[in-house]
């Protein structure tokens, strides 16, 4: 008996030592043992308040810590009640919502009409300085009808309102928010969501824990995951090393090459799928552009002809990606490439166009980029082959946005996920309707987009958007590239689904 225990003890000790040095085939997983998930992400949001950042990780945190009035089922596309039980369209510009009763914010504050009215009126006021203007600019006002009834008026006819209210427009607690403001929400975020913020070390990590008081009828059903730790690790190699050594359980936006290679590691798996994120290149044609050459349409056409998008998709972007011909995601309502000219890959033609534009010796431009650096470099290689020397300026997103909005950018390697809103109003207008990221500013395009955003008749909307998209392509204001797939690398036992909206849903995840 004693001998047996002794042997066992030695065996356990040896196992522990082996596990410690990582020699054991099946070491204990960091997250599996306590139902936690550790995610590493490369960009830190400047503010986790969903109205004050426009990066993907902000959307992810937003959907976990906060709730929206309506929920769109990612599998069926069906709208379901979340903080609102039901809603109806009163007239072209008015919506009414019956709110759910008995919902509590993480700080104990009760959710009611005052919160909705406060949030919508605050964010739609231009001087609130909301970063994501296009998500809220359509709201004229919100009014309280009674404690659980709210009326929302849109500035113009805005058919996509429900889509926005089920995505980026989350509900803040009015009393707390009035007191602490966006900065306070960043330091100590408070929402109604299925997770609450346990700790937020700005720029380093944010830890979420399961909200024990979450309302049971929510379409976001709480699962077994107790805590979620999101660490901001800008360097891809460090992320790789972390996931290889089981310091984190999940990384996302992994380049195809690395995903292919890492898929062979026994304790990891790769999950991938297409996303709504489109990749395109903006070309600054504003009056005082730092690159006057770009004002010449022939130069812009040359740039589009120079890039071999098909090969890029096939070789370095990966499965689940497709080439796009207009600046929107093909499945968004109103997105079409009908009537838009296509620019085939033709470096000789690009050179010819440059010659016609009186740049026989080529031109030199800067390109600013913030993610998928290998893709930027491939584009630079293609441009170089056509006589366009592009100098890379690789930055964090906020710095790149500053360059764009400050009219310092020439070419940009942009990506846009439309906040997962399935309507063109969330993509094309952001870059072409004279908003801050618009560096081409064509009034004709703006008017067509405006018409599409504000018409009631779906056919009229489609027509207006179609014309705008065709015009953008015809005048070669941007290089439409491709949609991005997302590659997740995760611990083998972590069960989850890759959705097109690039949203890992921690409330659905399970450990096997």
């Amino acid at each position, binding site marked *: 008996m004693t001998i047996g225990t002794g042997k066992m003890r030695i065996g356990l000790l040896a196992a522990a030592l082996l596990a410690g040095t990582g020699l054991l085939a099946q070491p204990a997983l960091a997250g599996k043992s306590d139902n936690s998930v550790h995610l590493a992400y490369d960009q830190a949001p400047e503010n986790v308040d969903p109205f004050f950042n426009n990066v993907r990780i902000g959307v992810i945190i937003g959907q976990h810590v906060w709730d929206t009035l309506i929920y769109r089922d990612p599998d069926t596309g069906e709208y379901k009640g979340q903080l609102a039980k039901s809603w109806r369209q009163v007239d072209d510009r008015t919506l009414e919502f019956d709110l759910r009763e008995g919902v509590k914010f993480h700080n104990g504050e009760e959710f009611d009409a005052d919160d909705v009215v406060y949030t919508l009126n605050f964010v739609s006021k231009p001087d609130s300085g909301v970063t994501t203007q296009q998500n809220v600019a359509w709201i004229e006002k919100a009014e309280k009808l009674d404690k659980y009834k709210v009326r929302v008026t849109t500035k113009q006819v805005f058919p996509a309102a429900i889509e926005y209210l089920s995505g980026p427009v989350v509900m803040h607690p009015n009393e707390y928010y009035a007191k602490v403001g966006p900065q306070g929400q960043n330091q100590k975020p408070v929402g109604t969501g299925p997770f609450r913020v346990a700790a937020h070390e700005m720029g380093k990590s944010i830890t979420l824990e399961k909200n024990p008081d979450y309302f049971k009828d929510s379409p976001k059903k709480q699962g077994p995951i107790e805590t979620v730790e999101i660490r901001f690790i800008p360097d891809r190699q460090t992320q*790789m090393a972390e996931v290889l050594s089981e310091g984190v359980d999940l990384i996302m936006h992994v380049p195809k090459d690395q995903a292919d290679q890492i898929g062979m590691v026994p304790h990891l798996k790769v999950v991938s799928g297409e996303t709504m994120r489109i990749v395109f290149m903006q070309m600054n044609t504003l009056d005082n552009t730092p690159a006057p050459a770009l004002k010449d349409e022939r130069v812009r056409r040359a740039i589009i002809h120079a890039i071999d998008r098909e090969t890029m998709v096939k070789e370095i972007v990966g499965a689940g990606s497709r080439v796009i011909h207009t600046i929107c995601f093909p499945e968004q309502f109103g997105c079409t490439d009908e009537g838009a000219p296509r620019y085939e890959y033709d470096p000789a033609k690009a050179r010819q166009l440059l010659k016609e534009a009186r740049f026989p010796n080529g031109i030199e431009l800067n390109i600013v980029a913030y993610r998928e650096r290998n893709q930027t470099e491939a584009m630079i290689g293609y441009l170089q*082959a056509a006589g366009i020397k592009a100098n890379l300026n690789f930055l964090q997103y906020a710095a790149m946005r500053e360059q764009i909005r400050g009219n310092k950018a020439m070419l940009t390697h942009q990506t846009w996920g439309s906040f997962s809103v399935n309507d063109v109003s969330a993509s094309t207008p952001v870059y072409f309707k004279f908003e801050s990221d618009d560096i081409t500013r064509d009034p004709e395009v703006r008017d067509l987009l405006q018409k599409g955003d504000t018409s009631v008749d779906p056919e009229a909307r489609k027509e207006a958007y179609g014309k705008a998209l065709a015009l953008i392509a015809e005048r070669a204001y941007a290089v439409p590239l491709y949609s991005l797939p997302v590659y997740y690398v995760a611990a083998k036992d972590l069960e989850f689904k890759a959705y097109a909206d690039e949203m890992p849903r921690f409330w659905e995840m399970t450990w096997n």
Partner: protein
Amino acid sequence: MTGTAFPPATSAPSSAAAVAELSAGARLRRRMFGQKSFVFGVGLLLVIVAVALLAPVLAPHDPYAQNLSQRMVPPFWYAKGGWEHLLGTDNLGRDYLSRLLYGARISLLIGLSVMVISGLIGTTLGLLAGYFGGKADLIVTFLITTRLAMPVILVALAVVAMVGGSLPVVILVLGLLKWDRFAVVMRSATQQARALDYVTAAEAAGASTPRIILGEILPNVFPQLIVVATLEAASAILLEAALSFLGLGVQPPLPSWGLMISEAKTYMFFSFWLIAIPGTLLALLVLSINLAGDGLRDVVAPEGRG
């Protein structure tokens, strides 16, 4: 115990006499080829220089030509490698050997230009301070201490981040930052030389100050200058690699060894040769410059051998 295993003491004078009989050129040759490390360093350096100069002839492919369907081909000694791309291709399908050959040009260009710029600044300051002493010395010493107070890599990073990285910027920034060691060494060497009789003799003969500095002192402090110059060239090459690795040096798609290491770090877990090859070359280049510098010092001024 004076066994026959030891050479008889009497043979020493005779061999010294033999050396004395040799011509100056032969003595130099003997000193040069007598040092294995010098021969190795210079030989290696010559090979690298030759390769860099002949890159357009030697390179089997255009170093900028990308072929996305031929990416990450391993070198020929792997089963999946082939003779088409001897050292394989990088993550954009560019021929790795060609990029390495052209990359040698960038590294040498940077090493040499930085050495010349910083050498000119540092030597001038050092000579002036050492020869004139007094106020000139005070000013130069002040400049040196000011310069030494600033960490090179930090200042270089800040400047490059502000101005934007490119080959001329990197060369200029490093050139303007790395003159301190030249100045320090030249200053003390000049101070020593200035007190020697031949300088006094030149002064007595009525030689002009520039003539004394350039004709009498400079040639006599040359051995020290060479050592510093090689050290600085090697360290400039390393600094450029560090800057490029951090993304602030030479910009893609220019092939620089530092940049290649930086680009390859994404793939180091699975395709280690991408990082190992330019890394080894960089180490060899720096080693060869240092060995050559050491050896040259011994050849030119054997009495200074430590």
